[in-house]
């Protein structure tokens, strides 16, 4: 039976579509960044970023996410060569790193809320939680996607569709990495040091 989904044109369409989706997501983040830029001084008597952010902690988060971007690259390389075991291992490592990142982020959030600096404290904190949280939500979706792929790779041997999806996932994960670097520099570095 002919596997139509293997058709290179079909794959091209999917890749283009996915790139465009990423671009629209970029616009969404741009909206949130712009909002943060407008509201970051609106602390309404509450604490500013400089008082709240623990830069070394965020640096650890950043390192973890950057590493996961590297490991997903290794997984994709493994997939391209048909090394099932290597791919699976690196996918699992990526998953673990992503989950660790998410845990750290949630820890940071819970500390802020516990100290009375929740999202309802000021416009600045609303925009902070929403921008960082939206990134976190993307990571969560990414982890879910990763989980489904791990299960499928485990159960079946390599199928072209799965490899194609793995490549798209790579794009998604790198994209989230880039967004995080913007968050790190704009929200934490500039906001935390000024």
């Amino acid at each position, binding site marked *: 039976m*002919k596997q*139509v*989904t293997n058709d290179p*044109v079909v794959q*091209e*369409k*999917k890749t*283009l*579509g996915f790139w*465009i*989706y990423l*671009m*629209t*997501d*970029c*616009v*969404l983040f741009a*909206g*949130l960044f*712009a*909002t943060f830029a*407008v*509201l970051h001084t*609106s*602390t*309404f008597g509450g604490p500013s970023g400089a008082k709240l952010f623990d830069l070394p902690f965020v640096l650890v988060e950043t390192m973890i996410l950057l590493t996961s971007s590297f490991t997903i690259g290794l997984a994709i390389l493994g997939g391209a060569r048909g090394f099932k075991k290597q791919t699976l291992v690196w996918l699992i490592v990526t998953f673990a790193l992503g989950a660790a990142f998410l845990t750290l982020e949630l820890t940071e959030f819970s500390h802020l809320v516990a100290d009375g600096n929740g*999202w*309802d404290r*000021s*416009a*600045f*904190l*609303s*925009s902070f*939680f*929403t921008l960082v949280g939206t990134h976190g939500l993307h990571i969560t979706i990414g982890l*879910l996607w990763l989980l*489904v792929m791990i299960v*499928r790779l485990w159960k079946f041997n390599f*199928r072209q*569709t799965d490899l194609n999806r793995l490549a798209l996932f790579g794009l998604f994960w790198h994209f989230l990495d880039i967004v995080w670097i913007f968050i790190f520099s704009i929200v934490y570095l500039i906001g935390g040091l000024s």
Partner: protein
Amino acid sequence: MFNTLSQIIFGRLTPSDFVHDPIMAGAGYAMIGGLVLVVLALTYFKKWKWLWRTWLTSLDPKKIGVMYLIVSVIMLLRGLADVLLLRTQQATNGSAGILTSDHFQQIFSAHGTIMIFFVAMGVIFGIFNLIIPSQIGARDVAFPLLNSISFWLFAAGMIIINAPLVVGEFSTAGWLAYPPLSELQYSPGVGVDYWIWSLQIAGIGSLLSGINFFVTIIKMRAPGMKLMMMPIFAWSVLCCTSLIMFAFPILTATLGMLSLDRLLGMHFFTSGGGGNPMLYVNLIWAWGHPEVYILVLPAFGIFSEVVATFSGKKLFGYTSMVVALVAITILSFTVWLHHFFTMGAGADVNTFFGIMTMVIAIPTGVKVFNWIFTMYRGRVRFTTPMLWFMGFIVTFTLGGVAGVLMSVPPADFQFHNSLFLVAHFHTMIVGGVLFGAFAGFAYWFPKFTGFTLNERLGRYAFWLWIVGFLLAFVPLYILGFMGATRRLDHYDPSLGWQGLFIVAGVGVLLICAGVAMQVLQVIVSIVKRNQNRVGEDPWNGRTLEWSIASPPQVYNYTVIPTVTYRDEFWEMKRRHHTIKPEYTDIWLPKNSATGIIVGLFALIFGVAVVWHVVWLVIVGVIGVIVTLIIRLTSDETEEKLTAAEVAKRELKRQTV
């Protein structure tokens, strides 16, 4: 105890939310009654299976397009019913009116939202689905399943926006729900939440659709069809979808932030807590202004096709037209501030945005001249689509001057939020988008049915619309000069506005008569279809969609054509070139229930968020995720139509 239990199960829903005043209850019962009738009829005629297989789960863009149009027509009727109430209220001012101010405000908020999101957007997506694949020589869209999901998200949004007729209330904050009015402090009820989630869900559908058609046009054109050989309608859709891709994420983010304010007590746009309501106004118009062009560019495309076809002539200034489309696309992102010159941004900022706005008039003007010159040295047949074209040029030019007038900031200070503004944007959207849709409907109708619409009734409808349109909106321009602001449920009788409101009301009645005439036109045309049967090419068309069967086969083309000219089909006919039939296996997407199930869970999610029913929110989210995972992990999504079957179908068609 009981109280908390009921809160866990029903959120903030209480039995009293089902109680409505007679008018709303009437509308609600009418809708439910209609739905029950449809269900009964389907059951009686044993059509459920047919409905499910042929329509609800179909991934054929032609079927999805028709479903979009059906939803839009129903919503158009709802929007018109709203207008009747609004105008009755204003025309009978003094005799205490018929509506409370709260109900009046719900109605105009619903009218604007429905007309933009569920009529205009629905119509353009319907037409994209029906026309785009066959016009660019393709069998399908790039992502058929995504297309179905988009439609069902749109449908879910539609149901949510109509739900307040039965349970709860709608927003009273206008179609764009400016904060702080739309914040909890001033609108604590469910109205604004209905508004947010209806638009959020439908908006995500629109965004996905935008991506889908953009990729379709970029990747699936027939071999040989370079970008500069595309039919101009396809160009307009390409520009429109680019706008969707850049504008709709802003809407998603903005609505998201407003709902976070309302759900979690955040302070994005609240008047206290450091929030900045003006930020919302900027963001919503950064989406809202491009949205206007998202609606009108496809209409431009339709008129370009119509005027070229019925003039029997090439479109004048094709390159200029494309340049103008692209220019408008880019410029539309640089003008959003003209919606609030009165915010006090300062003279320099206002001047910049004023001038950018006027600059858009240049490419638009060029298009008008090119359309007119397409008729020059042609053989113009004044069929109904051409009548709509003529009506469009007249109204659009006049509305355009009103628009340029308001792009001058100090002049805008006198027109902003007045009925002059209301008249202006209705002139543009009714005269541009709606007339364009009507022209496109009459033009492409025979392609999808095999028979033409009744011309005489079409003409009557056109004249009722045009006269009604003038009567409905000229008084509003005048009222604007008199200082009448929009959204007034009553006014001081001594101002002497009532006469003009009565004239406007008569205009609305004529428009309603025009719509009734159009409904009659469709019914009569279907009943007498054997008298109006036509072949593939009733208008002596120019573009590829006229080369395939009417109605088209599910696969559109047996052989994908190779394109060498801009008006490929016209040139084919001129050169007596025919494509030799050749039958190969064709792969088509299988039906899938994924779209409708995702839509259903999105609907559950939306309603649950509105009423704060946490468990149901979770059900909705998990439902969507699980449905998608199941679909994405299934491989057999396409089926083969063998060459023999294709040959059989084609042969059967030719003998009929």
